């Protein structure tokens, strides 16, 4: 290329309207260097995160979730009550502590504080009809919701991605059979399956000795199983569709021509390219699972008592709604906050990571 510069500039015709080529001068080496500078190398993930951080709603939702998770993790260490503990004053059960308003003390507690000049830890959200601290119950309810949401979406992620990837990659008859199975599962009514499974489990199995699961109860086990059995189909369909498209790209063909194995092609070429869809689907699966858990608990199919869940708390508060409205407001507000925050983040992730929406 360099020899081009030695060619003398052509003479300008006197009548020509063109700019006189003689007016041009050669770029110096320093000036040429300026065009060499390329933009900072960005990966797909970095680029997506940058766009995600620019979205104020996503950032706000993120911090809301961080605060909620902090409360969820640390409140049980700070608050001296447990979720199943009936309030006692000096070792005696305090019957007057039922249905207190937020930050209200019962007569006995007031007398105790006056007598010793100490402060009892306040009931931030009041108490329930069985004299239990309501705040700590809501916190535990939130824990249950998060646990369900994250476990369910992880299960959906793993099963759905593997199933969809296999079906989409191999195509043909394999795909046909696998997708008909998905169709069948899609048509099963999930609520019915949960009810049936929890009845069966209640009769046949005892989970009470298993550490976490025992506290949550058989209903939760059947719910997890139902998530594992039924909810991955949406993810599988999505991943399969995406892979069908990616498979057509020449880089997959190139890998095949180099002799790459099927699993290598899926791992190195196909899955990384549908990562955005997988992330987005997972983020949107969490609020859906939390919502399912809440409404199942609301209709009495959720966690076993005395473990609270946001849905069962809301259900219990229904009867005293006119006298003690805050008992409905607090669990309902946390469901709304969690689901809304997850949904907003999920939407923002879709906008940030979906290359088709890039402008």
């Amino acid at each position, binding site marked *: 290329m360099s020899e081009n510069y030695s060619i003398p500039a052509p003479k300008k015709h006197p009548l020509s309207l063109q700019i006189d080529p003689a007016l041009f001068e050669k770029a110096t080496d320093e000036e040429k260097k300026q065009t060499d500078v390329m933009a900072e190398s960005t990966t797909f993930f970095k680029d997506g995160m940058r766009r995600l951080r620019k979205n104020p709603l996503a950032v706000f939702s993120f911090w809301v979730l961080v605060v909620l998770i902090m409360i969820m993790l640390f409140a049980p260490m700070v608050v001296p009550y447990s979720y199943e503990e009936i309030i006692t004053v000096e070792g005696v059960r305090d019957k007057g502590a039922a249905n207190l308003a937020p930050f209200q003390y019962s007569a006995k507690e007031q007398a105790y504080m006056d007598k010793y000049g100490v402060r009892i830890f306040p009931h931030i959200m009041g108490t329930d009809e069985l004299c239990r601290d309501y705040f700590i119950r809501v916190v535990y309810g939130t824990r249950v919701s998060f646990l369900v949401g994250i476990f369910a979406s992880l299960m959906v992620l793993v099963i759905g991605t593997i199933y969809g990837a296999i079906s989409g990659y191999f195509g043909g008859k394999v795909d046909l059979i696998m997708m008909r199975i998905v169709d069948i599962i899609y048509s099963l009514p999930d609520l019915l399956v949960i009810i049936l499974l929890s009845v069966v489990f209640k009769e046949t199995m005892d989970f009470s000795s298993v550490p976490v699961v025992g506290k949550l109860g058989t209903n939760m086990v059947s719910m997890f199983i139902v998530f594992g059995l039924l909810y991955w189909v949406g993810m599988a369909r999505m991943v399969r569709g995406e892979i069908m498209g990616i498979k057509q*790209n020449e880089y997959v063909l190139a890998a095949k021509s180099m002799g790459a194995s099927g699993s290598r092609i899926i791992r190195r070429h196909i899955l990384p*390219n549908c990562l955005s869809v997988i992330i987005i689907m997972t983020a949107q699966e969490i609020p859906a699972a939390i919502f399912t858990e809440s409404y199942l608990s609301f209709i009495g199919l959720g966690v076993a008592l005395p473990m609270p869940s946001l849905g069962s708390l809301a259900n219990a508060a229904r009867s005293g709604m006119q006298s003690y409205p805050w008992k409905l407001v607090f669990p309902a507000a946390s469901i709304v906050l969690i689901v809304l925050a997850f949904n907003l983040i999920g939407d923002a992730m879709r906008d940030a990571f979906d290359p088709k929406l890039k402008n």
Partner: protein
Amino acid sequence: MSEPETKKSEYLVEVKDLKEWFPVKTGWFHTTPLKAVDGVSFNIKAGETLGLVGESGCGKTTVGRTLLRLYEPTGGEFYFNGELVTEKNIHPLRKQMQMVFQDPYSSLNPRMTVEDIIGEPLDIHHLYSSRQERHDKIMHLMELVGLNAEHATRYAHEFSGGQRQRIGIARALAVDPKFIVCDEPVSALDVSIQAQVINMFEELQEKLGVAYLFIAHDLLVVRHISKRVAVMYLGRIVEIADTDDLYDHPIHPYTLSLLSAVPIPDPKTARASKRIILEGDVPSPLHMPSGCPFRTRCRYATEQCAKEAPALKDRGGNHFVACWNK
């Protein structure tokens, strides 16, 4: 390339009567074979280039992909270095056969760095013993195709079309192949970049002694790079000859019309020259005409053409033509 020539064949690549039919559903229970490639034979010597030209949809790309077993051939034989290529021995042979793709935008994985793209064939065939050796090999390849070392950690979307095609070529060269199928490697590039890439192909051939099957529809590019040229029409080779012989003395009526369609840069010569314009469209490969596939558009067609397909016959000087009348 100091391996002893143990095999008797003088050709690196020998293709005999290659067929690739795709089943197409034409009804509830009927499938009709789409004869994308229907009996193609050619040979390529080591370090030589065979150009393969023809209009869109004539099966050029399918020939290349079938050779590399991206499609399972319906029939025919392919000998590589005297060895019959089958499904069983293809994996080690992939080290010696590579492919450069048409579209430099979709043939590179957007989630991989240049280093990983070029290193992938090395990974697959375990051609290095340490990370350092892998890195050194990749750097050498990048230098060979004219890429800067600092490009190694970048992603494909950060490059221009010509640079991307260089990455694709470096990837093909990574395993030190003897034969590369170039599937329209320059047709997606800008004209000025085309020249650079074509020249690079020639330089690499001189340096490394690779043989190319150069698939293109740009006749001038093919003339520039090829030693021999094959013209395809509807899945068959209609004429194959040494490059200058074919361009200066074309015999088959299809080749004649194809060559007359080459744009001529000088308008005066262009006006003076007579173009042979073919009538009608290419017949659907699902409903191939009987006999010679070109007869529906051929001005010399006779009854014999409809009855029987002409075979490739030597017209002297290694010039093969499949036509009854010319």
